[in-house]
C-alpha cells in the first residue's frame, strides 16, 4: 500500500518531468533564423504539409489541394499530415522542442511568431515577389510580418461583425448602423435594452459557449482598440499603461455592464441567435452560412460598436509557415499554389472566410459591393481591422488577456483584472529578455 500511494504521487510529477526532459533535449539545438529561398528546388524534394483538422469542409479542400498540386507539377511531392485542432498547439510545441517542425505548417495567426523566435521557422521574405505581395489583402501581409521579415501567409483572412435581422431592428425600433455610422457603445447598450423590452430574453449572443481561449482574445480585443487602449505598447515592450489604461478600463466596463444587466446569453446550445432568444450575435465570418440559411434576406451584417475611436475588428487566421529544416523553395512552391485564384475560390467556399487575394475576394458577389459580407473586405481595406500583436510574446498576451476577459465576465473589478494581466505579460517579457529579434 505504501508503494502504491507514493507511486501515484511520483507518477503524477513524473509526467511533468518527462515533458521537461524533452525540453532540455530539444531546446539547445535550435539555431537563429536563417535560410529562405535560393531559387533552386533541391532534386527529388518531398515536403510534408501539416494542417489543423478542424472544420470538415476545410480539411477536404486542403486534401484536394495537395492532390491537385502533386498532379500539376513533378518537382515537388507534397504529403498531407492532419493534426487534430484541439491538440494542435501542444503538438506543434512538441515538434518545435524536438526540432521536427514539418516543411509547410499552418499556424494560428500571431502564434506563428513564438516559433519564428525560437528558430523553428524560416522567413519567406525572399520567396515572395513584389507582385505576389501586392495582390494580397494588406491585412494578410501584416499578419505574417515580424522583425522586418515575412514568416507566414494565410490563404484567407477572418473578420468580426455583429449579425442581426431587419425584423429585430424594426420590432425594437432601433436604427440600422453602417460602417460610416456605427452604433456607439452607449447607443448599442440602449439598443440591447430595447431588444429586451421587445421580447428577446437574452438580446446579445457573445458566443460565450466558445469559452475562455483564443476566441476571447480575438473577439474582444477590438473593444480595447476601439476605446483607445492597446494590448501592448507599439514597440511590444510592455502592456503597462496600454491594456490597463483608463480608455481600456472604460470600454471593458461597458462590456461588463451587458453581463450585469443580464443582456448576454450563455448560449450553451450554440443556438441563442438562431432560436430567437438573441437579437444580435457578435461573432466572426464563420457563422455566416448557418445564419444565412436560417434568416435569408432578413439577415444583416453590421460593424462592432464604436467605443470612441471608431469601430475595430480582429483579423488574421490560420497561415502557412515554413519549418526551419525545409527546402524553402519547395515549400514555397506549394504555398504559392494555394494562393492561385482557383485554389483561393475552393478554400474560400469551404471556409466561408475572406480570400487572401484581393481580386478573388472582390470577384465573389458575397464580398463584392452590395454583398452581405462586403463589410468584412472593407474593414480590411480601410484599416479598421487590427492584427493581434505580431510578437512572440503574443502567446502570453493572449492567455493573460483572455483570463482578464473571463474575470470581467464573472464580475471582477475591470481595472484589477487588467492590472493582473499586465503583471503577467510584463513578467513574461522580462523573463524572456524582452524577446530579442532573431538575427
Amino acid at each position, binding site marked *: 500500500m505504501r508503494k*502504491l*500511494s507514493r507511486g501515484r504521487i511520483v507518477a503524477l510529477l513524473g509526467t511533468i518531468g518527462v515533458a521537461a*526532459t524533452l525540453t*532540455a533535449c530539444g531546446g539547445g539545438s535550435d539555431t537563429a533564423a536563417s535560410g529562405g529561398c535560393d531559387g533552386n528546388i533541391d532534386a527529388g524534394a518531398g515536403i510534408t504539409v501539416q494542417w489543423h483538422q478542424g472544420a470538415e469542409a476545410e480539411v477536404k479542400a486542403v486534401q484536394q489541394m495537395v492532390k491537385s498540386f502533386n498532379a500539376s507539377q513533378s518537382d515537388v511531392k507534397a504529403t498531407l499530415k492532419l493534426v487534430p485542432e484541439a491538440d494542435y498547439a501542444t503538438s506543434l510545441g512538441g515538434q*518545435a522542442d524536438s526540432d521536427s517542425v514539418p516543411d509547410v505548417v499552418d499556424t494560428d495567426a500571431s502564434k506563428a511568431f513564438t516559433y519564428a523566435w525560437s528558430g523553428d521557422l524560416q522567413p519567406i521574405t525572399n520567396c515572395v515577389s513584389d507582385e505576389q505581395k501586392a495582390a494580397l489583402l494588406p491585412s494578410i501581409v501584416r499578419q505574417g510580418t515580424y522583425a522586418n521579415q515575412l514568416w507566414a501567409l494565410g490563404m484567407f483572412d477572418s473578420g468580426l461583425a455583429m449579425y442581426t435581422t431587419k425584423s429585430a431592428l424594426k420590432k425594437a425600433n432601433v436604427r440600422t448602423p453602417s460602417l460610416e455610422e456605427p452604433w456607439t457603445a452607449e447607443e448599442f447598450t440602449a439598443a440591447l435594452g430595447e431588444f429586451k423590452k421587445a421580447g428577446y430574453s437574452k438580446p446579445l449572443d457573445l458566443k460565450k459557449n466558445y469559452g475562455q481561449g483564443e476566441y476571447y482574445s480575438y473577439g474582444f480585443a477590438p473593444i480595447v482598440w476601439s476605446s483607445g487602449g492597446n494590448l501592448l505598447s507599439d514597440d511590444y515592450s510592455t502592456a503597462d499603461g496600454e491594456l490597463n489604461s483608463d480608455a481600456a478600463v472604460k470600454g471593458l466596463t461597458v462590456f461588463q455592464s451587458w453581463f450585469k444587466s443580464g443582456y448576454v446569453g450563455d448560449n450553451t446550445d450554440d443556438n441563442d441567435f438562431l432560436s430567437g432568444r438573441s437579437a444580435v450575435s457578435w461573432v466572426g465570418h464563420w457563422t455566416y452560412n448557418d445564419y444565412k440559411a436560417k434568416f435569408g434576406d432578413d439577415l444583416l451584417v453590421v460593424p462592432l460598436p464604436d467605443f470612441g475611436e471608431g469601430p475595430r475588428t480582429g483579423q488574421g487566421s490560420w497561415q502557412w509557415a515554413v519549418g526551419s529544416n525545409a527546402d524553402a523553395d519547395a515549400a514555397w512552391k506549394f504555398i504559392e499554389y494555394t494562393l492561385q485564384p482557383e485554389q483561393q475560390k475552393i478554400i474560400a467556399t469551404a471556409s466561408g472566410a475572406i480570400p487572401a487575394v484581393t481580386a478573388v475576394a472582390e470577384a465573389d458577389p458575397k464580398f463584392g459591393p452590395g454583398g452581405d459580407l462586403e463589410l468584412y473586405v472593407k474593414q480590411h481595406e480601410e484599416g479598421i481591422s487590427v492584427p493581434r500583436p505580431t510578437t512572440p510574446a503574443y502567446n502570453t498576451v493572449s492567455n493573460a488577456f483572455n483570463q482578464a476577459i473571463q474575470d470581467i465576465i464573472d464580475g471582477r473589478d475591470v481595472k484589477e483584472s487588467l492590472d493582473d494581466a499586465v503583471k503577467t505579460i510584463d513578467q513574461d517579457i522580462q523573463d524572456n529578455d524582452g524577446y530579442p529579434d532573431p538575427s
Partner: protein
Amino acid sequence: MFSLPGLILLGLFLILPFVFAIYLSFTNQKLASPLPVRWVGFDNYHRVLTDGDFWRAFANNLLFAAVVVPVQTGLALWMAILVNKRIRAAKVFRAIFFLPVVVVMTVAAVIWFLLLDPNRGLVNGFLGAITFGAVEPGWLQSTLWAMPAIIIISIWQGAGFQMIILLAGLQDIPQELYEAASIDGATKRQQFFYVTLPQLRNTLIFVITITMILAFRLFDQVWALTRGGPLNSTDTVMVQLVDTGFERKQIAVASAIAVIFFVVVLSLTLIQRIFLKEERS
C-alpha cells in the same frame, strides 16, 4: 534481482524525470525559447510561494479534500454494505453504482455541464420545480456554487471505485464473527461498529489515503468544465501547474510548483500514517 526490470522502468520514467524536475526548478528553462538557460537559485520558489493565485488554488485543494474524503468514503461504505446484502437486486445495484467509474471523466464532464446549465439544465429544472423557483444555483457559472458542483461530480464519479475496494474488504470478514456477535445478542448497529468497522480498518485506511491523494490531484473535471474559474473559485494546484508549464511555457516555474506540491502531499500522507496506523498481522 527479479525486481530489476521494474526498477529500471521506475527509474527511467519516474525517478529520473522527477530528479530532472528538481534540477529544472532552479533554472529559467522555458519551452521553445532560444535564450540560454541560466541558474536562478530559489527565484522560481520565491515566485510561486508569493503568488496569491497559488495559495488560492492550494486552499481550494484543501477544501475539496476536506469535503470529498469523508463524504466519498462514507458514501462508498454505505453503498458497499448495501450491495453486500443478500438481496435480489444486489448485482444490479452493484453495476449501477460502478457505472460512473467506467465513464471517462471528460465525457462525464460534458454531460454534467449540460445537466448543470443554470437556465435550461435538468438539475435546476428539478430544484426549481420542487422549491417553486426559490433554489436555482448558478452552478459552474457562479463563484459560490462552482466548487460544490465540482465536488458533487467528483463524488458521483469516484465513489464506485472505493465501493469495490470496500466490498472486497467486507467479503473478507469471516461470517462466524457475525454469527458469534448475534449469539451474544449484538444488534445490527453494534455489529457494524464492533465487527465491521474494526475488521475493515486496513481497507478503510487504504481508501482514505488514496482518496486524499486523488483529491489533491484534482484536474480533469476542472480543466474540462471551468478551467479554474469563475474567478479562481475552482482553481487547483494541478491546473496551475499545467497552465504555467504548457500554456505559459514556463517549465521551470511549473517544476517548482511540482516539487512544492510533492513535498506537501508527501507530508500530509506521512502525517496521516502516523495518526492512522495499520494493523499488521
